[in-house]
């Protein structure tokens, strides 16, 4: 498109190839749709494969029996209870510590170097592979604190693992509360803690609770750190949370999936259905809690 274009040619048009450009766009849009379709297909195949393999094995006996060397008699009772114990302890520990840390970082911390360090540190911890937390738990909780391979040691390890997630979600929920809410509390003569406790926390509760429940789901689905700290065992009795051996659902799935026989793959799939159902329940709970707690909040 030079200035000396011959007059005979038509004036340079702004849209020399509109058809082609629109076609490129359509192809690109098609590729976008195809990528989503591919992901949906993968998820559907996964669910289909697990359900067809696992459903024949899934009955009441499967839920009420401990594992066994014979697939027909094996069940998930011990690992299911192990997972529940882990989930409850992790939730009970991560909730107060995580929310307290988030309150400090979002409501108290001045913009000092120390506080920026704390914040950066937490986002970096969120990126540490879970298996590294297993190594930490093995050295600190199992050996140094001499807890042994117990539910408590496992729960403490997973608490450290999910704390960054809980803290980050809670900070986001606290930051979403408008400043007018804080100023209103101060104007009524509240101290900083009274303002946080009575005014900000209730307003941020839906976001915080959702974060905690999803973090608990994450803890229940984790296997790698617990394998490192000795939960990969054959447990035929209901675990005592403070002492004694235990195992959890994902590790039970792993143990069975390692066996070459098709029957073991079947009960492994049945255990996957159990853990997916547990995840579904927790996610549903998060949605309900969110809806209930945010009924009275409007700004």
């Amino acid at each position, binding site marked *: 498109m030079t200035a000396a274009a011959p007059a005979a040619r038509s004036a340079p048009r702004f849209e020399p190839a509109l058809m082609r450009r629109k076609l490129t766009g359509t192809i690109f849009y098609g590729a976008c749709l195809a990528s989503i379709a591919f992901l949906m297909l993968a998820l559907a195949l996964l669910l289909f494969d697990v359900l067809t393999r696992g459903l024949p094995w899934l009955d009441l006996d499967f839920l009420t029996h401990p594992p066994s060397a014979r697939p027909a008699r094996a069940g998930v009772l011990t690992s299911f209870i192990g997972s529940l114990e882990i989930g409850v302890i992790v939730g009970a520990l991560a909730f107060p510590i995580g929310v307290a840390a988030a309150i400090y970082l979002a409501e108290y911390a001045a913009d000092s170097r120390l506080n920026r360090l704390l914040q950066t540190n937490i986002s970096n911890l969120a990126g540490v592979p879970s298996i590294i937390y297993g190594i930490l738990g093995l050295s600190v909780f199992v050996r140094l604190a001499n807890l042994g391979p117990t539910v408590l040691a496992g729960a403490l390890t997973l608490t450290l693992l999910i704390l960054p997630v809980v803290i980050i979600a809670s900070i986001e929920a606290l930051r979403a509360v408008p400043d007018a809410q804080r100023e209103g509390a101060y104007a009524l003569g509240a101290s900083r803690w009274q303002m946080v406790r009575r005014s900000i926390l209730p307003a941020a509760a839906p976001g915080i609770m959702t974060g905690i429940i999803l973090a608990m789901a994450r803890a229940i689905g984790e296997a790698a750190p617990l394998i490192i700290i000795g939960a990969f065992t054959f447990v035929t009795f209901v675990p005592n949370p403070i002492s004694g051996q235990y195992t959890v659902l994902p590790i039970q799935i792993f143990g069975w999936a390692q066996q070459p026989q098709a029957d073991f793959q079947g009960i492994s799939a049945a255990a996957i259905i159990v853990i997916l159902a547990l*995840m579904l329940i927790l996610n549903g709970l998060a949605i309900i809690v969110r809806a209930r707690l945010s009924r009275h909040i409007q700004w």
Partner: protein
Amino acid sequence: MSAASITLTHRRPIGERIIERLLFLAAALGVLTTLGIIAVLAFETVEFFLQISPIDFFTGTRWSALIKPQSFGVLALVSGTLLVTAIALVIAVPLGLLAAVLLAEYAGTRFRTIVKPILETIAGVPTIVLGFFGLNFIAPHILRPLLGADNIGVFSALNGGIVVGLLITPLIASISEDAMRAVPRGMREGAFAMGATKFEVVRKVVFPAALSGIMASVILAMSRAIGETMAVVLTVGTKPQFTFDPTESVQTMTAFIVQISIGETAQGSIEFKSLFAVGATLFVMTLALNLLSGWVVRRFRTGYS
């Protein structure tokens, strides 16, 4: 209290100060965790290096911790890890970015309410389930019929890479979508006003403007793939080897750590100590990537106001 004694600089009540201290302690627990991780890894790794030369460890390409003669060349595990990670990224980057564009630029509200939960479901599935899927479905029903059972075994880096790719796709999609949404509407409208098509707006305006966030998402996904454990343990096998052939069975750093942990390895033995040296290598690699992703966001962020 007389009026004269009232000052504006009043001391905060003791209860308030105690609460602030307690909240600070909770926040500082994170630093303790970090220090704990570094101390544990450093201490045990030094013990390991007293017996095995660090030069052999970092430059050797043969890893045989459980079968005599022992050899601790971590490159065999690192290459397995990077091979799986590379395959995962080849799958996840296009899939994740296209999904992100769809969500951020094309999708209406109704479409989003269908697609977002699908991505979140994939992200929330325990990774052991994806490993099971790779072992029982992808290998026997897709890879082996497609490539020929003679060419690829049940366990392969390709299988592991596909599974890990599926599981990091939602991560790339969701961070990239946020980055694209943060691009101001006015920039798109400016481009439309100049006659650009929708695709040209996405490619020449939105994508460059969101590039820092997109790059950060890819780096984070890479770090996640390197540290992924359960999906890999069931799919890549237990054969540490220095290879870049995706059809080969390999062993990743994480899979080795699991293998040592479920075996009957004596706690003071050199192969047990190697677990910490491998863990330290993994930790340094993922930490470097996480710091890099933070730096990319800060360095290349385009501010809009």
